């Protein structure tokens, strides 16, 4: 059984904010005016229009950018950032990031579209639609914060009780209870992905744990690397090899990060041992010290599943006479508390259980001939707001339908009928 115990130096605490000192009372009217002005701006149509247009422009630029930059990078730069600079030829256009725009839009919706909007029959639909959009935004925010997304790949008859990330990596120092490395219990010390993924080549991060006899220092991190043979020495050269930093791949899953890992004495001192860790290494690096055995490994972030899943059979059907896939089907067994439950996962029909959802997402080998053992890849998602968008969708639909049909269209038809009647009456009276 593994224990995941990550210890990282605590970030220096920021001093508590100074308590508000009662001073001479400011003229309340000024604050009131400021507050009223702020509320007026936050609830204004003008702000809503500006934010909608900004989001439109960001989405447009973010779409075009995908023609030469990977989706993950575009997401990070345009949609999850606070600020973005988009280059169009010689011009650079500064824009707020989508996260800022969406936050302000949510605020504008709450203040202007729900709280301050006139509450009457004619605005009921609009308020409902606004609430639906807020629900959608809130669901997306919770998903962004609290969901795990990864995959598990299984050959037929293979099983797993965990899944791994597509593109987030973590550094693991594993201590085996059995110093021969023959197996047995192990304790894992994890340097989490969030500490690694943003590192620059020049950054050094030290990783310490009272259970380890050394500190782990990570340096020369690069998000996409390949080993190269070098003559001579260098601070990032180990046994004549170093990791060359490459440009990021367009598809983030294809990036292979790497770093130099040095094991140093507690509190500093020279390196006792050094190694290069690389995303494509199949086996961990082993370090033995005082009769204890440690394994160091760079791997995709992993999460446990609350059940075990076994792939019994994978079936790929093609349209007759073509190589076009018609259906992918995985026949799996879900095992939980010793009880086996059979399930069928196919496109548009995932397996949902205990807050986790397994989707059919891939298969292989692509060049498989008859009799080849196939594997199936499942996307695995733990998303507490899995069903929120659908609910929000119907709430918005109901609101908009009420407003545009029951209020606006019916109102228009009534007015038109009244005008026609008035016209007829006028003609009669005239006659």
């Amino acid at each position, binding site marked *: 059984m593994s224990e995941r115990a990550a210890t990282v130096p605590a970030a220096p605490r920021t001093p508590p904010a100074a308590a508000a000192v009662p001073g001479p009372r400011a003229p309340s009217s000024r604050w009131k005016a400021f507050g009223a002005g702020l509320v007026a701006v936050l609830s*204004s*149509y*003008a702000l*809503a*229009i500006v934010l*909608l*247009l900004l*989001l*439109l422009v960001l*989405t*447009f630029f*973010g*779409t*075009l950018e*995908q*023609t030469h930059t990977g*989706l993950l990078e*575009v*997401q990070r730069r345009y*949609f999850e950032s606070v600020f973005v600079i988009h280059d169009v030829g010689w011009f650079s256009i500064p824009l707020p990031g989508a996260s800022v725009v969406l936050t302000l839009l949510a605020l504008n919706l709450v203040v202007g579209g729900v709280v301050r909007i006139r509450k009457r029959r004619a605005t009921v639909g609009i308020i409902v639609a606004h609430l639906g959009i807020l629900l*959608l935004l809130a669901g*997306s925010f919770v*998903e962004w914060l609290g969901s795990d*997304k990864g995959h598990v790949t299984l050959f037929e008859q293979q099983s797993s009780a965990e899944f791994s990330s597509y593109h987030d990596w973590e550094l693991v120092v594993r201590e085996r209870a059995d110093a021969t490395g023959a197996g047995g219990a192990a304790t894992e010390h994890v340097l989490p992905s969030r500490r690694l993924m943003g590192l620059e080549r020049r950054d050094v991060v030290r990783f310490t744990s009272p259970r380890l006899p050394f500190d782990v220092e990570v340096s020369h991190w690069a998000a996409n690397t390949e080993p190269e043979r070098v003559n001579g020495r260098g601070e990032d050269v180990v046994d004549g090899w170093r990791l060359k930093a490459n440009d990021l791949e367009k598809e983030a899953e294809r990036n292979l990060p790497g770093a130099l890992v040095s094991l140093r004495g507690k509190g500093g001192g020279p390196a006792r041992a050094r190694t290069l860790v690389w995303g494509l290494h199949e086996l961990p690096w082993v370090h033995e010290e005082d009769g204890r055995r440690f394994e160091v490994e760079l791997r995709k972030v992993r999460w446990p599943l609350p059940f075990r899943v076994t792939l019994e059979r994978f079936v790929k059907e*093609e*349209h*007759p*006479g*073509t190589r*076009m*896939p*018609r*259906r*992918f089907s995985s026949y799996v067994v879900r095992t939980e508390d010793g009880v086996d439950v059979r399930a069928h996962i*196919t*496109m*548009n029909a*995932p397996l949902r259980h205990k807050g986790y*959802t397994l*989707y059919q*997402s891939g298969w292989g080998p692509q060049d498989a001939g008859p009799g080849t053992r196939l594997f199936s890849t499942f*996307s*695995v*998602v733990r*998303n507490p707001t*899995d069903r929120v*968008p*659908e609910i*929000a*969708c119907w709430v*918005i*639909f109901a609101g*908009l*339908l009420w407003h*545009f049909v029951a209020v*606006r*269209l019916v109102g*228009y*038809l009534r007015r*038109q009928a009244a005008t026609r009647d008035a016209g007829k009456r006028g003609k009669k009276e005239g006659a």
Partner: protein
Amino acid sequence: MTTRCAVRRPSARVASAGSVAVAIVVGLGLFAFARTGDAKEGYGEGRSAAPAYVPWSADVLDVAARVPVQDGGRVMPLDTFASYTLLGVAHRRSTKTADGTRIGGTAWLLDVVFRPEVARRHPCFQVENDETLDAVGLAHEGKKKRDLYAYDDLLPAKDRLRDLASAYHKRPSKSLSPVEGGIVDLHRAMVTFERLAALVDFARAPVDLSGAPALASHFGGRTAVGAAEFLERSGALAPLLASDDPHAGVHGAPPAPAAVPPGAARVAAALSDRARSATGLALLPPPAHLKSIEAWLTPGDALFYLLQGVALPELMNAQLVALARMAASPSDPRAFAAAAEDLRAAGEATSRARGEYGGVALEVTLNRLDPFHRAPHLYLLAFLLVAAGWLVSARWLRGVAWAVLLGTLAFHVVGIVLRCLIRERPPMSTLYDTVLFISGAGVLALAVAEWLDRRGIALTMAPLFGWLGLFVAGRYEALRGEDTMPQLVAVLDTNYWLALHVTCIAIGYLGGLVAAAIAHVTVLGRVLGFKRADPGFYASAARMTYGMLAFGLVFAVVGTILGGVWANDSWGRFWGWDPKENGALMICLAQLAILHARLGGYLKAFGVAMASVAQGMIIAFSWWHVNHLGIGLHSYGHTQGVMTALTIFYAVEGAVLLAGFVHLGLRSGRQPAGAGPAA
């Protein structure tokens, strides 16, 4: 009295002029409609000294059109296959023979398969630009851009084309230049032609049985036997032909033991060579009791079975014999028609028994009705009638215009319904489907708008909208040159989501597009000073623009979110910033911004119209452009023609907006300071 006469005379003149105008426009419309038949099998006059083309009889064309075949994973009538194969080669639905006779897809295919020596002189290969010909060393003096070439014209460059195309095949299609793409397309078209031209090569020459007495004894000792006659006795001959041919084993059949009588091995080897070229079209359905075998057989497959000693099922053998008879009698119309009927009847019987024929009969009906190529002409006729109504204020004319419009719409809808029934799918599952649906639904929406607000604006726009939509559909079909009812990839195999998400988003598109169409009336009308004295006209246009924007918004928002919900069900993520998702979001944002700006008083009628025109460009971006960026989950590959058309569309719409801004500037310049209303 005098006054009355003075009033009457001009109106009589107007009526008379109007009647002439009506006669002209109706005549033009009928002429346009009559021309729709041109694309079908025609028998035009020759134009040059080339040998006179002998057309296929109407009976032959009718029978051949109904032969069931399997291609792209689905069963369809030969007519459909022929039509899109010709589109893939010529990028048009009909072509000309060497002597200038215009022929349709089925006649062309029959020529290629049964009279290749004639077909190779048909100028039917479209070459997009001269540089493609330069690249393969072909002369093109006197030819224009997008001119057509015969197979014989291209033959000298065949090897060069093959070498270049195989080199370009190794590269991603997106990285190919238009010339390189043109080379790949031209090579593909030539290979298609060659494969079809070789389909019945196996039956063109008699089977040589000299030195194979055991086989010859079945034919009274004759040593040269026609292929049809030989195949008629295939049941008895199969065991004698069984060999361990290295090409045996198609569809997993075990090779037969090699107990071959003297001379039969040579006959089998010769037949095997013939079989190898007969793989261009799968038109032999396996027997009904072997329904688990979904792939139909080509004549070559069937011959390989025969060479392994497998006696072919009766109906399949009958089809093979019929093909051989057709190959032997292309110049004997009666014999050819009888053989074609046998081929069709046997194919229909087997495919019916397999439960695969239902869609074929419907598709034959659809092809005969041909609504999507005839309706544009009818929409044009409806528009001309409406236009005539501007000249003559006659109730009956308006009634006729309404009748033609609604009749054409019904015709259009029948086409969509037939496609749904054939595919057993909701109306939209491909980009082409969306054009058919949006143009039809747009006409309906405009007709409803006209019924609500009887100003003639929507009635004028409706036939134009329908015509433009079907024109785009036709151009796209010709550009792609593929089956417009293809099988769907695994992720799209869900009628629930196709019906829900795709329909909603398409209605969202159409709402916005109809709003944009009506907005053009406002912008261009104001710019050109049309109906200046009739503010009610513009108020009406503004009402309809607003109504259509609101209608579009409801469905665009719901469709966009439902797309995310579908993605969540299929891939486990609601929103992935995929270009198609982004496009849909951009439409929602644009429509929301316009409606909020209108509500907040920032935009008046003219401003809303201008913004709606811009919003139409965003819809074009989302609907078409993102699919051709070569990225994301909805990428349809690089299609040069689509991007060119989009560029023209953006330029035209940009010009409309520019004209609107100039008008706005001039208007505010004329008004005294402080008196100008918001746009």
